[in-house]
Structure formats: structure tokens, C-alpha cells
């Protein structure tokens, strides 16, 4: 059914810490590894070893440079996958009912045997969270590792999404964002977690934690005054050398 269900009390999702992410892409690899051999159609690659490789991924890491008005630019690694929106536009546009949001935990999924591969849900998603698999012709998206998180065949520590389990920096957190006492909700409250593109009105469940402000480094080096760089005022021996070398044929002006 592509009608959105009534809001679920439980809202499973991710909290991604942009302060901690080191941009190693381990989450991208573990996501592809788990999801290509489990739930649904595999995530195919085209010309994986050819001149123009391309493939289906459910999670991708962008890197952005942010230039403040004063001070140094910052480099911020930015993992992006499905945000399991409360008001998911990808669900309501689906003509076949393949795209749906679960009532019990709010996870947005695709029933691949109903998907006609029209691509409209990917058009409706502002985040680029859905990719049409070029080989299977069906829409692929993050399942929040629905086949891990409830899987009693796995040890308890593995019952979380593959990207969270693998992150070496601890930049990804998984939990119930509908419960305000959960670890993830408290983290969001503490760190000022925010929504991506709030103006699109999708009400994403996943939240992002902002990078912490950079430390201001004061001029602190006691030796600095004694280690002045080469004189730039053109006096003394260096000044004479500068003029003499500049005067030679081919000399720097």
C-alpha cells in the first residue's frame, strides 16, 4: 500500500555524527557486502573492472569543504543513505504499492516483486537515497538492515545495521528515534541533531550531528620571534644577494 500508515510510535533510524566521520567509506563497503547477498536482488555493478565503472549502492559518502567567513576551511565527510522519512514522498508516488513504510517501526522498504522499475520514487526523493539497479530493473534502497536488526540467528552485538556495526570511528548510531529516552534521541538532543533539507517537508527520521567548532589556536610558539623568516626588507647581506642575483641575466624580478 502506498498510502502512508498512521505515524508509528517506534521510529527506527540512524544518527550520523559529522564531527566523528573520517570518510573511510567502510560503511559503504559493508553495506554493499551485506545487502548484495541478503535481502532482495543483489546490488549489481556495471563494468566493475572496465573503463567506466558504475554500480548500485545504498549508502554513499560525500565530502564537502566548508569555508567560514574567517579562519580555515573545514573538510566534512558526509555519509548519506535513506532517511526513512515520516512523510516519505517516495512511498505515495509509487503506482504499484511496491514502496511502503512499515507500521511497526517506520522502516521504508520496497517489495521488489511488485516494483515495475518506473523510477518515480527516486525522482520524488530529494536525498538520492534510491537507485534503480541496472541489472535487475528494480529500485534498491537502504532497508536499515531489516534482516539483521531482528535476526535472532546473529549474536546480539551484530543485530544492528551493517554500516553501524562496521564504523571504526563510532560515527554512526542506530536506535529508536521515536523514544525520547533512547540513546540516539538523547544524543540528538545533546548535540543539536538536525534534518537534511527540512524545507522539503519530508520529516526525516535519521538525524545528523553537526561538526563541533574548531579550536582557535593562539600564537603560542615562544621560539617564533627568534626564527624570523628570511628578511623581506632588503637590508644587509640577504638584501645585497637578492639585488645581485636579480640583476644577473634571467634573474627573478
Amino acid at each position, binding site marked *: *500500500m*502506498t*498510502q502512508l500508515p498512521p505515524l508509528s510510535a517506534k521510529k527506527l533510524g540512524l544518527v550520523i555524527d*559529522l564531527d566523528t566521520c573520517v570518510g573511510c*567509506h567502510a560503511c*559503504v563497503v559493508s553495506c554493499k557486502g551485506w545487502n548484495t547477498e541478503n535481502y532482495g536482488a543483489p546490488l549489481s555493478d556495471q563494468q566493475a573492472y572496465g573503463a*567506466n*565503472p*558504475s554500480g*548500485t*549502492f545504498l549508502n*554513499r*559518502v*560525500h565530502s*564537502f*569543504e*566548508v*569555508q*567560514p*567567513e574567517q579562519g580555515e*576551511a*573545514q*573538510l566534512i565527510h*558526509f555519509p*548519506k543513505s535513506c532517511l526513512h522519512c515520516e512523510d516519505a*514522498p517516495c*512511498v505515495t*508516488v*509509487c*503506482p*504499484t*504499492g*511496491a514502496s511502503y513504510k512499515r507500521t511497526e517501526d517506520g522502516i521504508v522498504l520496497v517489495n521488489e516483486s*511488485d*516494483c*515495475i*522499475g*518506473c*523510477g*518515480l520514487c*527516486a*525522482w*520524488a*526523493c*530529494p536525498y*538520492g537515497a534510491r*537507485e*534503480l*539497479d*541496472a541489472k*535487475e*530493473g*528494480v529500485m534498491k534502497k537502504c532497508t536499515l538492515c531489516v534482516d539483521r536488526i531482528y535476526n535472532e540467528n546473529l549474536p546480539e552485538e551484530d543485530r544492528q545495521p551493517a554500516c553501524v556495526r562496521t564504523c571504526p570511528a563510532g560515527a554512526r548510531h542506530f536506535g529508536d528515534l521515536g523514544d525520547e529516552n533512547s540513546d540516539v534521541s538523547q544524543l540528538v538532543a545533546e548535540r543539536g541533531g538536525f534534518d*537534511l*533539507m527540512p*524545507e*522539503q517537508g519530508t520529516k526525516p527520521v535519521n538525524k*545528523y550531528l*553537526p*561538526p563541533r567548532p574548531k579550536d582557535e589556536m593562539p600564537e603560542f610558539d615562544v621560539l617564533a620571534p627568534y626564527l624570523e623568516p628570511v628578511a623581506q626588507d632588503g637590508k644587509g647581506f640577504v638584501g645585497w644577494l637578492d639585488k645581485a642575483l636579480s640583476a644577473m641575466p634571467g634573474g627573478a624580478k
Partner: protein
Amino acid sequence: MHPANSVILFNTFSGLGFGLLFWLGMGVIVPTGTSAFIWFAIAYLFAVGGLIASTFHLGHPERAIKAFSQWKTSWLSREGVCAVFALIVMAIYGAGLVFAGARLGITGFIGAIASLGVVFTTSMIYTQMKTVPRWRHWTTPAMYLMLSLGGGALLAGQIKIAAVLLIAGGILQMFAWGSGDTRFKASGTTMESATGLGHIGTVRAFEPPHTGTNYLMREFIHQVGRKHVEKLRIITIGLAFLLPVVLLILPFSHVFAALAVVSHIAGVLTLRWLFFAQAEHVVGLYYGKR
């Protein structure tokens, strides 16, 4: 947005076909017998041909029947339901004219409205996209309806109606382009809101997530259309609206009428190509592109 050939063909030819069915259903021309058969064959060739072309971009066209189920929320589903309804009703109306020489007035009227309904529901598939600010405006459905009515009248040989609708369509299209050029900016979605990093400073895409391309970039980021946009707009206005109107005003000849139709179709194909190629999806912001 990627201008997919199948979707451009669908939008152009189904629009014309359903436009012709509208005028046939309204009884602007009431052919009977063999002549009715030819009129309806042309209309169905365009309308159904376009619909079939539209299935070519599907990953699983064999499951297309499932697309009729979600009419409560999905404009694509509504379009499918509307198209089947319009085609069945107009087939009954057409059969009456071809085989019995009888005009089932009410049936034709219902079929005509349903034919316009198909065009409207198609346009809403695009208009509903908040992610493509250029499309999210009343000019999108207005332009789809105007083109379908104008092109349909042209095919039906209704010189006066066609000339008026084409002139109005040309003016409306220029307004749609002009106002559309400002809508991405007006939507308020920026790299800063996309990343939530605007409070720190100016955001620039430093490194994409992959060395090659991907589905998202192929589908949503298309810059060639905008590079030549001025020329393409002039070509569109000339071929789709101006030349057909001039040819219609000239003393009637079948050659001029045929040329007007050919010119209009070429113009609308350009217009539809531009409709997609020019439209910017907000996801491009994550790649620092539009």
C-alpha cells in the same frame, strides 16, 4: 533531469492523440463509416503508441498491470486508470460512428473529458515533484492541456481553434520558461540546507562519493540542455507555435496543413526534450551540480 526518449515520445504523441480524441468526442467533427475509422485510427495510433513507448523505460514492463492499483495516492496510477477508461469509452463512441453511423453524444462527451483527464494526470506526475522546483507550478498542467488541445485541434483540421490555442500556448510557454528560471532559487533548497552545514560557512562539493558516475547522476544531472537553452527555446517557439499558425493562416492547402502538423510535432518534441533536460533536481546539490 535525464530526457528519456520513451517518455518524450509518450508525452508528445499521447498528448496529441488524446487531444484529437477530445475534439472527436466533443463532436467538433462527426465523421461516419470509413472516414470515422481513419480518424479514430490516427487518434488511437498516437495515444496508444505513446502509452506503449512509455513502458520502454520501465525495468519490469511485464508487471505494468500492478500500476493500476494505487490510484488513491499515485498520479502515475491515476493516469493509467484514466487512460484505460478514456480509451474504452472513446472506442464505444468510435464504434457507434464507424459501424452504425450513430453519434452517442453523452458517451463522446464523457470520453472527451476523460481524454483531457489523462493529459492532466500525466502533467501532475511532474507537477507533484517538490524535488524539481521548475515543474512544481500551475503552468505545468496548464501547458500540457494547452498543447494537447491545440495539437488535437490542429490534427482535427480546426484551423481557427488551433490558431488561437497555439498562439495562447506559445505565450503561456514563454511565461512558464521565464517564471521557471527563478523557481529553483525560490524553493530555498541549497547546498547549505542539503548538508545542514550552512551555519559554519559556504559549502563546496570537495570530493564525490565515487570516481565514476551512478544512477542518480545519470538520471538527475543533465547540463547540456541548459547550455543551449536560448537557442532551443527559439526553435521550440518557431516550430511548435509560430510556423504552424502562419501555415494555417495561409490559403488552405493540404500540403500546408501537413507541414503545420509536422512542424508542430517537431516543435513539441523539442519542447518536451527541454522540459526534462532543463529541469534541475535538488539531489544534484549533493554533487555540487544541477
